[in-house]
């Protein structure tokens, strides 16, 4: 048995490198993009390829990275979560709301011990995620619409909490994790790394992770295999909201303030990181490894464009074009893969 299996595997490999590369296109293309961009900026600017700047890039992508962990789960299930930035924002504001502010901050807040404030804030984002989950699975609202509504709801709660003001204080633990560092490494980078690693382990080595891939790969088949598809979809929506919440709390500490519309750019950045990394929008393909590459592509691009001193308005256009290119590759890779499977 084993010998025939090896023989077949060899025969299979002998079919050549080209089909293999084609089937791996979604992993290879983002990586090549990253190498190309890094090489380009290293040539274009002497200040780009330095250890200090690597630290900058890591810090700059950390909040996006934390949010993107949960979003990777959602996109692997062939769903989408548009409420991530709003939930990040409201959670960051909530943790400040439950912390005693300086007397000049004019917010009618409810000061609580730091640990309680953190727990309550995480409960809040989990609750919002649960509402997303119920809307998607029990009522049957498509995630695109459901999370669009949640985006508004979370923004509304944020607005009511801060009423146009800015809060500055967050619990000590959050301040440390968001803006402190240990032996030169920012805590926020460490947290992002740990969460990305955790997400990867869950997706690769746990039963739940397998279910996520299978539900994304063929939802009908998952149901016919006796999986509780609704439970799995609900779980990824809650995971996404909690990751966003954590990203939001640390982000507030990192920026040094909590206010309305603080995280708006993170919605597009997080989706871009996941998709540019090569995770399939049709579900079932990709993973945290892809998201990490995607984060670096975005990070290098944003940071590098600053180094070459380009027109800041052009920068937005270039980011859009890169995103479009990644989407084309994403769809194309799916097609190649399907062809290879036939």
């Amino acid at each position, binding site marked *: 048995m084993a010998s025939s299996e090896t023989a077949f595997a060899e025969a299979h490999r002998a079919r050549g490198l080209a089909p293999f590369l084609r089937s791996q296109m979604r992993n290879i293309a983002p990586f090549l993009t990253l190498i190309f961009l890094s090489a380009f900026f290293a040539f274009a600017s002497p200040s780009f390829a330095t250890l200090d700047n690597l630290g900058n890039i890591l810090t700059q992508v950390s909040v996006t990275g934390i949010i993107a962990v949960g979003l990777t789960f959602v996109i692997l299930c062939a769903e989408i979560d548009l409420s991530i930035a709003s939930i990040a924002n409201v959670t960051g504001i909530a943790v400040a709301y439950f912390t005693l502010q300086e007397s000049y901050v004019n917010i009618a807040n409810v000061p609580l011990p730091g640990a309680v404030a953190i727990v309550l804030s995480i409960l809040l984002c989990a609750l919002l995620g649960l509402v997303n989950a119920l809307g998607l699975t029990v009522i049957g609202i498509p995630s695109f619409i459901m999370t669009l509504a949640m985006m508004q709801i979370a923004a509304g709660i944020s607005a009511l909490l801060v009423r146009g003001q800015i809060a500055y204080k967050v619990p000590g633990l959050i301040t440390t994790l968001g803006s402190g560092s240990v032996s030169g490494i920012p805590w926020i980078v460490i947290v992002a790394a740990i969460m990305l690693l955790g997400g990867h382990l869950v997706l690769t080595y746990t039963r739940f992770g397998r279910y996520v891939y299978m539900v994304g790969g063929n939802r009908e088949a998952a149901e016919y295999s*006796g999986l509780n598809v609704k439970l799995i979809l609900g779980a990824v929506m809650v995971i996404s909201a909690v990751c966003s919440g954590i990203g939001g709390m640390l982000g507030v500490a990192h920026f040094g303030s909590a206010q309305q519309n603080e995280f708006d750019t993170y919605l597009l950045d997080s989706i871009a990181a996941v998709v540019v990394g090569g995770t399939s929008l049709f579900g*079932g393909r990709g993973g945290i490894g892809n998201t990490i590459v995607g984060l670096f592509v975005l990070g290098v691009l944003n940071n590098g464009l600053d180094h070459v001193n380009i027109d800041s308005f052009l920068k937005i256009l270039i980011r859009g074009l890169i995103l479009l290119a990644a989407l084309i590759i994403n769809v194309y890779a799916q097609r190649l*893969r399907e062809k290879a499977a036939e």
Partner: protein
Amino acid sequence: MPEVRSPILELQGITKSFGGVEALRGVDFALHAGEIHGLVGENGAGKSTLMKIIAGVHTEFSGRFLIDGKETHFRSARDAHAAGIAMVHQELSVAPDLTVAENVFLGNQPTNALGLVQWRRMAREAGEQLARFGIDVDPMTRLGDLPIGLQQLIEIARVLFSGARIVILDEPTSALSPPEVERLFATLRRLREEGAAIVFISHFIEDILLVSDTVTVFRNGRKVAETASAATSKGALIEAMIGRGGEALEHSYTDDLMLPQSSDSAVILKVDQLSLSRSLKDVSFEARAGEVLGIYGFMGCGQQELSRILFGKLKPDGGTLAVEGEPKTFASTAAARRAGVALVPESRRDMLFHQEPVYKNVSISILDRISSLLLKPTQERDIARRQVEQLQIRPPVVGLDLGMLSGGNQQKVALAKWLTYPPKLLVLCEPTRGMDVGAKNDVINIVRDLRARGLAIIVLSTEPETVLSLADRILVLKRGALVREFKNEPVSKDRLLEAA
């Protein structure tokens, strides 16, 4: 009935093959104005292929094709339509989100000089047309809000009133209730008086005998009989359809087969008064351990819905389900699986992950038995390897993507999912459809082996051979109701067809 006059449509020596397999072999067929022509034959006998040639769907074939005595060659369905030929396909093809009136006028809505749709006129005319058909609905209701049978009648009405002089109806009555069938027949007769030629394909031989003037029988791509309906009987038609003397290579099941003494082992599943809107009516039966229960019926008889209810994918409107005496209402397929029910649906695409390796396909439904939190890939592969060996799945490589396996081997993988921890009740829909003889025999042996291990097995099929080759007891489902039970008695293909 056919008088001595020239046919409006005449086909001579039509031969058509798909990839080397001949679907039609030298068929002659003629159709006269003012005639209803019934077509019968088993699945794959060539009826639909011939009709698709007439309707311009298949354009590559050999033989002569004459309309009004003139040789014609359609290049597309549009050409056929222009020549006055319209076809109602078996599957409903309506726009459920549009109104009834829009559906009736789909593609040629009345417009005014500015190109705007004349809604009032469209609604009025649609209402008039449907009234002629005995359908009394508000033309401005959304079509999807109407029952399926009515939707099908409206689709048929659209085709009948499109001005076509040759109308082909493929299995039009399978979703209709008896009064709706009556209404359809009345309309067909009226159209015949007006000089239309109608081809009527159906598995329901009584319907064919009732409404048609002439009947043509197909078997294995050949026309084997053409006779006036008044001069034949259901028995004679069935005999012509399946043929004596074994043209087929396989066991043809034309002779009586003795079903075994009914078993009195434990009742695994008890279904009581199950109903689902228009699909199932008061279905009650039991499935026992160590027994294969066959459920036979024509396409659309409610089999598919029944299997989905048993696996928790559909919720019944009424009735109860009990597994080993315990009443169950499955909230999800996961609940059904936990209760010991397994389903292999008729479409492999629906239950397999083509882009994942074989071993993940095998292990997905038993993962919770082998791992609580962390996956155990080595164990998964071992389990899959055992199944692959046992079921002789080729190639025997568990790491290969499923999509690279042949259809028959994929079907075995679909079975393998449920075999490591066998369920109490295994529901198989069309387990051997589209398989070659070798793979079919493999599947039959697997099912027999499972029966010996004490599983209750339900096999649902629209092919009599499948049911006859596997079942110990056979139920016949007709238009959503159980009409006959064969147990402990002789059964054959014509007896099954007779009952259905």
